[in-house]
């Protein structure tokens, strides 16, 4: 794989994989709940990229991937809104957004 090659599906998928991995790492390692949510968004957008790219390169006429990506973004927006609201509620309750401080569900 050479940098001079035309941009193809593999490039998109590589980008998506990098983004997903960054998101996964962030979700696993960040202490702040806000940062974890942002990392989750990264992973979601990696998936969106995959959807759009694969649709563009396999069946461009139908545009199913693009449309599905738009749905996915809407759902992500709603999800992040809910997630931030939960974080806010948690903050009000315990004056912190550190995930390590939240262990009430320990078995």
């Amino acid at each position, binding site marked *: 794989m050479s940098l001079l090659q035309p941009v193809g599906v593999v490039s998109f998928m590589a980008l998506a994989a990098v983004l997903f991995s960054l998101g996964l790492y962030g979700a696993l390692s960040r202490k702040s709940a806000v940062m974890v949510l942002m990392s989750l968004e990264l992973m979601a957008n990696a998936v969106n990229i995959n959807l759009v790219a694969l649709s563009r390169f396999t069946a461009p006429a139908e545009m199913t991937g693009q449309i599905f990506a738009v749905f996915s973004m809407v759902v992500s927006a709603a999800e992040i809104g809910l997630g931030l609201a939960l974080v806010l509620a948690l903050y009000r309750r315990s004056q912190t957004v550190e995930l390590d401080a939240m262990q009430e569900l320990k*078995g």
Partner: protein
Amino acid sequence: MNYVIAIPLIPALAFAILAPLSGRSRNAAVPIAVGASVITLGLSIAAFLAVWPGGHEEALYHTSITFATIGSVKLAAGILLDPISATMLVVVTLVGAAVQVYSLGYMHRDERIGWYYAVLSLFTAAMLGLVLSDNFLQLYMAWEVMGLCSYLLIGFWHEQEAPRKASIKAFLTTRVGDIGFALALAVMYKTAGSFDFAVVLHDFAWAPGAATAVALLLLFGAMGKSAQVPLHVWLPDAMAGPTPASALIHAATMVAAGVFLVARALPIFEASGVALTVTMFVGITTALVGGLLASVQHDIKKVLAYSTISQLGYMFVALGAGGIVAGFYHLVTHAFFKSLLFLGAGVIIHAAHTQDMREMGGLAKKMPVTTVTFTIGSLALAGIFPFSGFWSKDEILTVLWHGEHYVVFVLALVAAFVTAFYVARLWFRVFSGPEQTSGLKEAHVEMLVPMSVLAAVTSVIGFGSPYFAEFLGHVGEWPAAAIALTSTAVAGLGLALGWWAYGRRNQVLNTRPLKSRAGFVYAALAQKLYFDLTYDYFIVRQYGRLAGALSEFDRTVVDGIVNGAGAIWRAGADVGALIDRVVIDGAVNGVATLVRAVGARVRRIQTGRVQSYQALMLAALVVLMLWFVVKGA
């Protein structure tokens, strides 16, 4: 004549009012009982006067209701007013009213006087129900109620041991006789098919065998109630009860119920023949035994008790000779003069603070009314003209003479002699000689009035004897002069001997003239002719041994079986419990322990940290992907 029904019901009502009350309110209701007895007396006299001019043996008023039906057998209760029952009505209610008024004075300090009056009322109701009954079954039921009342009154002072024991003895002894009565009822119904007097006594033709069976069983019942030898042992002990109750129940009325029963059932006795002879034999034995035993008692009430037994025996003799008039008439006169004597004895006991005649004396000077009335009663008992006992005793002797029962006639004269002797002994011991008690004074007026009434009746009733016989439907006549003179001479001899032994100046302080002259006779008599000892040895003690043996059997065999079965069950239950504990509990606890151990280990992955869950999910994803890769390859 409908008011006759009310006669037994009024005292029953008095009992129904008094019995449910308690303590002080019951004591306050005593006038109700006294009032009821006086009203009953009035009604009875009215009924008697209504019957009197008729003067024959037919029923003048008869009504009956069926109170129970068993299968096709109808059980009836009825009221039969005829000369016999009308006479008994007056006797029972007059003595009853006298005793109730007298008890106002005698019992007024007792804290349970209300209960005493309640039982007296129930007794009066039962006795009236008995004399008015028109069938043997009702008679038997009233009979048993009277037995209960007798038991309650003998044991009235149940805080003390003697009345308690005496009440049980009286109840059980009369119970022995009652069995005879109950069997008589069974045989009677089996043969005659009815309990009604009209059927059993008049319409039904008795075969001699059946009649003998029924008559002897009835006689046995009567012997228990009327304290005839050998079932007499309860009556002297019954003197442990209140003296007025003794006067009413154990002298005048209840003990006469046996005589009344035999008088009522006399047609059956006559159909049998043998039963009459047995009745006469029992009666004369009792008359002699009772008289002899009365002669050695020191307790004034026991003298009167044995005297009662003796006089009841006299009545049986008369009935056994077929002399219903003589026997029944003696019942009536005896009821009056013996209740008079008992009431007098009550006054004497109150005044002298003892029942032992050896500790009495000289009462005549301080207690004139008591002395006069008691003397009238004593002379009537001894059979001295013109008092009532003279007339009825002469009638009995006349019947025996005319019936050609010469041996019994002589024995009856002996009994009369003994009677006069112990009457004199009693009288001289109590009334003459030096005073032994300080502070003697006459009794209250409510005690003296009933005694005076009874004394008046005793004085005059004898002159009615021929009219009484006609009233009962027999030929009435004055006693023959020969018999009257003989009996008076015998009684006079008895009194004279009594005076010689106890009344003479130098004999007054000799407490044991008989013992000093005839020791072995005295010993036998003092031991009550060994009746009580015999019963104690052969019945009470053997019964006790039997009960002990049965108790031992119960303890060892029956209890052993029960306890053995229990032990077996228990062992089985122990095994079951062991299985339960080890196997079932083990399984349950084992499962629980297992779950707990697994949980303790598994819970460690439940850290509560979102990111560790994520890491786990990632690891699981990787593993799955690797698995797919490997599988795909």
